[in-house]
């Protein structure tokens, strides 16, 4: 038997690995303790308390843009319970189908079951228990917590609107760049080059301090068909006031949208079996108009339209978008749309020419070439970087602090100045943005895994 060569302890890879990790851990812990003690000492010296108790204090400052926040009472738990039950049941169903070597997407009735479990039943519970959701609005005497919640709602609002608008604008610019028309392709190219090479904060300041400040006064508002009014104080739009049948109407619209999935799937099935595409347009329109229309006829007008009217020194009624909000949304949309346009363009160009030629050779119509061959492949390239852009919008919305739009960071900043609780406020900011980021990237990972090319 051969004798094992003796390895000195300090050359043993396992021992070394353990030692390094132990040293690192010890160093980190020592650093943490040191920072903790320094912070306590510094806070004591400055007479600042620690902990989150201050959040219950009265805020006392005005917020320029207040969203209505929902407050959930006990009954709301039923909705959450229904949702949770629906999700668990769907998962169980998926597992059961997997054992039978089937997929949820295989049959309409499984999809129907999933939608019923996760959407219809929870919505029904919510509708039955709608008294349990109350709404509150921030006032000056509300707590810091309320102020932060209002800021958070504004952050979410800007993020969602910015994501949607920048995607569409980016799509248009990308198509423009790919257009055979020389002029429009150059125009779109320079739109991209100018916007992505200027700092986003600078662009926000440009819209806020230069463009919006040059708009006319309230009395000389730019009037677009008595519907839209644009002036220094912002953009005024008609608003929809929900009536009694509003919730039922919204549910009808949601159901109609879901039924489109079935119409499309049926059309695809017909296409696969007969070669002729099944009817899509007429049934879709029938469902989209018919179902909400029925609710409208039975329950009366779901939304009342309220026009902005100039009264005295300002507009009354309608929805007023503050100049800060307008500048922020325009600035973020324009900036991010330049990046989105490049992502979409390179995604479409990444699909090799042969794919398009092969699809044409098979006799597919031009729109089918795009929808069935090019887009599904381009989406795979487009989605991951688009996700980072959506995350960037969520994060860049924090630049609102520069133009004074009251979102999470600018309200947090005000509280920080008032109370001096810097560690807590920065902690809250980071926790909130980190959760948003993790949520968006989790959602996108799930989507990417679904559309991933299945190899071998």
């Amino acid at each position, binding site marked *: 038997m051969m004798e094992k060569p003796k390895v000195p302890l300090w050359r043993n890879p396992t021992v070394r690995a353990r030692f390094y990790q132990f040293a690192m851990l010890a160093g980190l812990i020592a650093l943490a303790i040191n920072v903790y003690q320094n912070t306590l000492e*510094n806070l004591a010296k400055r007479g600042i308390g620690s902990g989150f108790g201050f959040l219950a204090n009265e805020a006392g400052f005005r917020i320029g843009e207040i969203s209505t926040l929902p407050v959930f009472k006990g009954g709301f738990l039923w909705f959450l319970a229904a949702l949770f039950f629906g999700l668990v049941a769907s998962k169980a169903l998926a597992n059961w189908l997997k054992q039978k070597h089937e997929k949820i997407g295989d049959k309409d009735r499984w999809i129907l079951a999933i939608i019923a479990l996760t959407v219809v039943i929870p919505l029904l519970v919510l509708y039955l228990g709608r008294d349990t959701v109350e709404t509150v609005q921030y006032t000056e005497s509300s707590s810091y917590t309320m102020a932060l919640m209002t800021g958070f709602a504004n952050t979410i609002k800007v993020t969602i609107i910015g994501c949607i608008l920048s995607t569409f604008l980016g799509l248009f610019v990308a198509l423009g760049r790919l257009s055979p028309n020389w002029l*429009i392709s150059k*125009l779109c190219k320079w739109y991209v080059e100018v916007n992505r090479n200027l700092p986003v904060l600078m662009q926000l300041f*440009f819209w806020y301090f230069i463009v919006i400040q040059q708009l006319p006064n309230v009395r000389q508002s730019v009037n677009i068909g008595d519907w839209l009014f644009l002036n220094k104080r912002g953009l005024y739009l008609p608003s929809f006031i929900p009536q009694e049948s509003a919730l039922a109407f919204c549910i009808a619209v949601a159901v109609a949208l879901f039924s489109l999935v079935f119409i499309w799937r049926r059309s695809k099935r017909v296409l696969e079996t007969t070669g002729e595409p099944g009817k899509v347009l007429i049934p879709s329109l029938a469902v989209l108009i018919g179902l909400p229309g029925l609710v409208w006829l039975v329950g009366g007008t779901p939304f009342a339209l309220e026009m902005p009217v100039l009264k005295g020194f300002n507009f009354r009624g309608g929805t007023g978008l503050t100049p800060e909000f307008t500048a922020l949304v325009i600035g973020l949309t324009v900036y991010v749309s330049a990046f989105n346009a490049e992502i979409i363009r390179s995604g479409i160009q990444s699909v090799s020419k042969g794919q398009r030629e092969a699809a044409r050779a098979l006799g597919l119509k031009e729109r089918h070439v795009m929808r069935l061959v090019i887009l599904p492949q381009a989406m795979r390239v487009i989605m991951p970087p688009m996700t980072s852009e959506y995350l960037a919008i969520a994060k860049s919305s924090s630049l609102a*602090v520069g133009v004074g739009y009251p979102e999470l960071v600018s309200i947090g900043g005000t509280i920080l100045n008032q109370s001096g609780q810097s560690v807590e406020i*920065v902690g809250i*900011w980071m926790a909130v943005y980190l959760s948003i980021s993790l949520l968006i990237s989790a959602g996108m990972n799930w989507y990417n895994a679904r559309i991933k090319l299945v190899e071998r």
Partner: protein
Amino acid sequence: MSFQVIEDRHPPVTKTGVLGWIRSNLLFPWYNFVLTLVSSWIIWSIGKPFIQWAVIDAYFGTKSEVCSTTSGACWAFIRDMWPVFMVGVYPEDLRWRPLIGLVIVLALVALTCIKQFRSTRWLRFLWLLSPVAVFLSIGGSETLGIEVVSTDYWGGLMLTLVLSAVAMIFAFPLSVLLALGRTSNLPVIRATCVAWIELIRGVPLITILFMASVVLPLFLPAGTELDKVLRAMVGITMFFSAYLAENIRGGLQGLEAGQYEAADALGMSYWQKTLLIILPQALRIVIPPMVNNFIGILKDTSLVGIVGLVDLLQIAFATTSSPEWFGLLEEAYVFIAFWYWVLCYSLSRYSQHLENKMDTGR
């Protein structure tokens, strides 16, 4: 029957040359014509007022009194104030010192452009020395007898460039370590690096800047004073180390496994393998994305205005609030936009050039 040669005919004049180009690129089919009209209208409605304001109605003289009367741009403002845009409130009689710093960097760039010098040892040494030289020329030093200019006086384009350069210089080694840590197989080290990278990439730069400017002083032993510029530098460096680390990790993972295996087979230690085999190849691949990252730094330094520094963007507001040049924000904006755009655009062209060069090199 004899074979007759038919003379070559020229293609119709409407299919070739300028006419053909215009026909197929601008006019036909009909929707192309509509698009041409629409885009011409867009260019006209943006370009005409701008040219009218910036050139035709503009005032190019030097008298500040004219500014309140002219309807176009008043370029007297830029003619008078451009040094302030460059260096902020840096003492007027010492403005030659940032210039020396600039000359040092430009001279090194010029030397690097010459092929014979590019990979010489002394040039690398000079590059390593250059940050110190630039820092001494701008900030001064008491021990060397160069008059000290406190960072409170740093501003303008100079501050923007210094912040980005410092962030890049310090974030780079940090990010190499983070990337190595993230790909390491020691769980504690990997977890620490992943946590750092994901935490920082998940939050906006502005919260990190706030942290560096209000929370960081609390973390340090009582009595430690950090000036504002230094705090911003710490924040930006932390922020970009995470993004750079992700790029470098891409380079590390882009290498063939064979490179790692061959180094192991030669009996190299971890650090020999990393420093001699892996990093030289991995870093080469990631130069173009790193240039893009630097463009990001350059643009994002504009956020330091929110924590109270006067960089190129804030200079526009600082100068236009003085009584002499009150409200000339548009002119200031055109000027700073020009600088940001030229810097970022040329860097992005450079990065594309590098990428093309690498593609053909393989």
